[in-house]
């Protein structure tokens, strides 16, 4: 027998030529809590998807051993059979089913397809007690809080005889008390020999619960160290720290007049009734790139979608565009007032994938297109062709569906769409997510050109080097508030991380 519960060696995974994981190795001892740290996009989630069989054997290279035995997972069922269970940020429970039914989902005891209710409830008790869940087992899961739902997930995993439990950002949506309880339960499970891989941004939690920490950066494993040798700043400097200068062709433009002023902006989610953005005030000037940094869930995207009039929730606060007080009720309004928003998820919110490039580019400018009854074809082609040329979008023809383009070119189509609306302020939410280095560079150059022409840019990014490399000023958000503002000269990854984790 080996001392390792899990050995992943030289895992390499590519997405259409971009290496998401580059020879990553991860070794986890039996019965330890092993924290996996890294910035957004460092490869943590990809690595866990490789481990859980979401990316089946053969779609990546490298070697996985569980308890010393080599394994080849074709799907999640295989990894579960080997005792690997993953609990995602988005929980995978059936809300209309009871706790007991969820614990046994897909594995209901009984004969000939008839579920034995008695057995379900009897056996479920054993597992829910193990995770300290004190609720009647007949409670529907939809009535549970997020923390309790998580416990149901863990009970479900234990019931499947999971020996390696993977928790992906388990505390992102939990209150402080729930976090405490979860950590306590994980410690108890550890004492019973369950191995746990703990993915978290929250370094204080990592330090308090983990035995060992592995840090990923840019798809590589940077270091694996016992927690006793680490402190918060040591982990942060492992997570960041790379050479930025060549990647970012930043040209600074002297800022002009204030283009957008946001005052006392607060946003309450319609679903959870939680306040997601609290009393945020800032301004963006012509020719300026203002970066917004912060962890996932810090309220950045909600802030910008609510400014754009597209957030389904209660919004309070004042907004001024070019010195004029405006009230924006929907996207059409925002476009008309001169706001453009390149959304975070280009496939879900940015593009109509089945439509051709021309129609995608003009989609937000339909009203401004020439033509009284019919859209004037030739002019439309000319407008979009100019943008395709200016942005160097590589396309076989304008009539090709955008789904056929690479990620970088798709992103440029989204940006083209917004430039065609002639915005005064362009908001970029994760403008370079999932695109290759070359296309990133071109988008940075484009940002320079736009600011030189006097456009104001507000950029959200989870990639710290990008924020540092391209912003004139950086607002750091945490817990829905602006935790601090850093000037370009004084900003550093460490300072941003310290501010960002402060609100958590």
């Amino acid at each position: 027998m080996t001392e390792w519960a899990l050995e992943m060696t030289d895992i390499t995974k590519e997405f259409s030529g971009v290496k998401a994981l580059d020879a990553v190795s991860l070794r986890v001892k039996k019965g330890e809590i092993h924290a996996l740290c890294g910035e957004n996009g460092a490869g943590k989630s990809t690595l866990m998807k490789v481990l859980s069989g979401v990316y089946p054997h053969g779609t990546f290279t490298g070697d996985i051993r569980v308890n010393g035995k080599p394994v080849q997972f074709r799907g999640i069922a295989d990894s579960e059979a080997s005792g690997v269970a993953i609990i995602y940020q988005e929980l995978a429970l059936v809300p209309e089913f009871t706790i007991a039914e969820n614990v046994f989902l897909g594995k209901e005891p009984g004969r000939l397809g008839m579920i034995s209710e008695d057995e379900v409830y009897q056996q479920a008790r054993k597992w829910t007690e193990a995770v300290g869940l004190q609720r009647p087992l007949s409670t529907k899961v939809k009535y549970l809080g997020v923390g309790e739902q998580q416990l149901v997930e863990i009970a479900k995993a234990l019931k499947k005889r999971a020996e390696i439990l993977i928790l992906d950002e388990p505390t992102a949506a939990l209150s402080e008390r729930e976090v405490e309880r979860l950590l306590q339960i994980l410690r108890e499970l550890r004492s019973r020999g369950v191995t746990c891989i703990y993915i978290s941004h929250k370094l204080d939690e990592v330090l308090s619960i983990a035995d060992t920490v592995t840090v990923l950066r840019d798809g590589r494993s940077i270091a694996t160290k016992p927690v006793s040798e680490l402190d918060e700043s040591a982990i942060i400097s492992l997570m960041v720290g790379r050479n930025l200068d060549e990647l970012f062709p930043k040209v600074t433009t002297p800022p002009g007049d204030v283009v957008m002023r946001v005052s006392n902006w607060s946003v309450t989610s319609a679903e959870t009734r939680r306040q997601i953005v609290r009393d945020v005030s800032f301004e963006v000037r012509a020719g300026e790139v203002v970066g917004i940094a912060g962890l996932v869930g810090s309220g950045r995207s909600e802030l910008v979608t609510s400014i754009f009039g597209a957030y389904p929730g209660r919004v309070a606060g004042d907004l001024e565009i070019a010195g004029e007080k405006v009230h924006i009720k929907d996207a059409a309004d925002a476009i008309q007032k001169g706001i453009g928003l390149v959304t975070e998820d280009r496939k879900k919110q940015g593009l109509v994938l089945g439509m051709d490039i021309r129609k995608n580019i003009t989609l937000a400018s339909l009203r401004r297109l020439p033509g009284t009854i019919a859209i004037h074809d030739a002019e439309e082609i000319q407008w979009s062709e100019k943008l395709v040329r200016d942005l160097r979008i590589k396309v076989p023809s304008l009539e090709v569906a955008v789904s056929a383009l690479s990620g970088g070119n798709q992103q440029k189509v989204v940006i083209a769409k917004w430039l065609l609306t002639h915005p005064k302020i362009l908001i970029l939410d994760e403008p370079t997510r999932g695109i290759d280095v070359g296309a990133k560079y071109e988008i940075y150059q484009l940002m320079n050109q736009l600011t030189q022409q006097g456009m104001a840019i507000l950029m959200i990014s989870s990639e710290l080097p990008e924020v540092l490399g391209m912003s004139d000023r950086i607002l750091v958000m945490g817990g829905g508030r602006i935790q601090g503002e850093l000037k370009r000269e004084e900003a550093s990854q460490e300072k941003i991380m310290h501010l960002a984790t402060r609100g958590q």
Partner: protein
Amino acid sequence: MSMNQPELNAVTKVPLKQMLRVNLRTYSMIIALFAIWILFTATTNGIFLTPRNLSNLFEQSAETAILAVGAVLVIVAAQIDLSVGSLAGLTGGVATICQVWLKMNAVESIVIALVLGVLLGLFQGWWVAYQNVPAFIVTLGGMLVFRGIVIGLTNGQSISPLRDGYVAIGESYVPPMVGIVLAVLAILGYAYFLIRRRQTRRNFGFAVRPIASDVVLFIVIAVVIGVFVYVMNAYQGIPIPIFIVLLLALLFSFIAAKTRFGRSIYAIGGNLEAARMSGIPIRGRILSVFALSGLMAAICGIVLTARLDAGTVDAGTNFELNAIAACVIGGTSLMGGVGSVTGAVIGAMVMGSIDDGMSLMNAAPFWQYVVKGLILIVAVWIDIQSKRRQAA
């Protein structure tokens, strides 16, 4: 923007192969339609291809085709309208009641039927767009409600006779001479359209298609128009219902392909979120789509009752399913965002041809259902297969 890029972008070159591929789906449907015709011509000793039969076939496809034209927009917007069959029955029934019981003239009763169709379409659209009730539910409810109203209004009797001017909509023909004049005008109009397009493209500095390809296109269309009118005239002329279908198809093709409204419908069905974020007024658009669908149901109801010269309780039963099937066979995706009016009309003709051909073969009526059902499944399967091959 002031970026200069010396190289000419590839955009200006629109390869012919590309254009052909875009229309592949429409072509394959036309080919399938001809294949069906050849098959039936062979199995019926040529009766199928006689002008008389073709005239009947077109006329019988007309009602499905009218509904299908409206259904395309609904389905492209990722909605569904199950009520159009009942609504056709209701609007047609009201038109006959207006004439027979209320002694109104043809025009008055038509206007009332059309207005009623639009209002009931708006009513359903309001539930979908503003109250967020799924279209499937709203229109399933509408289907029951409208049928119930027809039964209640008519007391289960059929209502006739109708006014001559009204009946003419369903039963008369465009006089042969007028048909020829229209054909010539259509051919000239198409030539003008092609020349105009070449000119604009040249003025804007775009690459123009090789003249030969436009000439071939022109000849094909001219021959199709010519043969169509010739064959119809060989019987009694173009049936008025077919004429209505052609006008509506032309109008709705234009709306779908060329207008802002049409564009926004495709965007809504293709990606609702992206459409919303691009400032498209989603609710208003969905409301309009249902209003148009109601209008088409009313037109269908008028044509139907005029052809039968009576209002009946079960008029339009199951028409909605035929219309949806016609759309799907014609390449409209139930997921939304994809579909064409031309395809839907061809789909309606495929279904009509099967009904007609099989009854000519003296096949028992049940076979029509079986064959149409299988064709529906196979048409969608072929589509999925070809997409998968493209993706690979």
